[in-house]
């Protein structure tokens, strides 16, 4: 199944990236290209929230590129968050013991509270 990707700026430096379909050997390069496009378009990228509501499948190739995004953000003092992780996707992350180091949000409300806190940090120059 192909991968559909859409990003949106929620606040300065804060983005959501929606993924729908499969993130795997055949599609991980599409994901990388979309993240590169986001970085090319916006000079400041501090937080990327991956909205995985429509993601039905992930393999280690997909996990790797998410890991790379997290590293890229962390290198610049930023953060990666995950929203709406489906149970089968969560299971894959759980098996490779990645859940403890991921910020996972179950709902938009939970994410909004987080984004407000992030905004304060950005305004205060802490991020």
């Amino acid at each position: 199944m192909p991968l559909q990707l859409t990003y949106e700026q929620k606040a300065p430096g804060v983005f959501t990236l929606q993924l729908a379909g499969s993130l795997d050997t055949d599609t991980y390069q599409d994901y990388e290209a979309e993240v590169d496009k986001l970085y090319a378009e916006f000079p400041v990228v501090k937080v990327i929230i991956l909205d995985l509501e429509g993601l039905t499948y992930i393999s280690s190739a997909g996990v790797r590129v998410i890991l790379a995004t997290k590293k890229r953000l962390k290198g610049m003092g930023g953060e990666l968050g995950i929203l709406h992780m489906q149970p089968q996707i969560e299971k894959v992350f759980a098996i490779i013991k990645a859940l403890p180091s991921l910020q996972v949000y179950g709902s938009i409300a939970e994410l909004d509270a987080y984004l407000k806190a992030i905004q304060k940090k950005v305004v205060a120059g802490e991020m």
Partner: protein
Amino acid sequence: MWHLDINTGNFSMTEVAQRIAAYLAECRCPEGIIFAIHLVVEELLTNVACHGHSPEIRLGIEMTAGHVLLEVVDSGVPFNPLEYEVQGLDQAFADREVGGMGIYLVKEMMDELSYTYKDGKNRLRAVKQFAP
């Protein structure tokens, strides 16, 4: 046993996954199990295609009540995934090196694995059990 021959130089994982899913759905295999088999096949094929130097892979699947048997046969470099130890899973996600995750997933997703190397062929058999 249902078979699929894959040319490692030129294959679409999406197409392979669709064929497997169609076959398993026909056998009334539960969706969660189809997901697991899809994942395991992808990890094993990617591994053989990247490191095994085998021109072809023969995939076999057999489904009986509560049990899917998956067989992957290739003529590449001898490689026993059962002996492969994955390092670094205790490290934070962002600090990890990227290798080995696929094989670890295979081991964790399947209930039984066995490997033989005979007549120049790697043969990996993996079983997934479920409540029928």
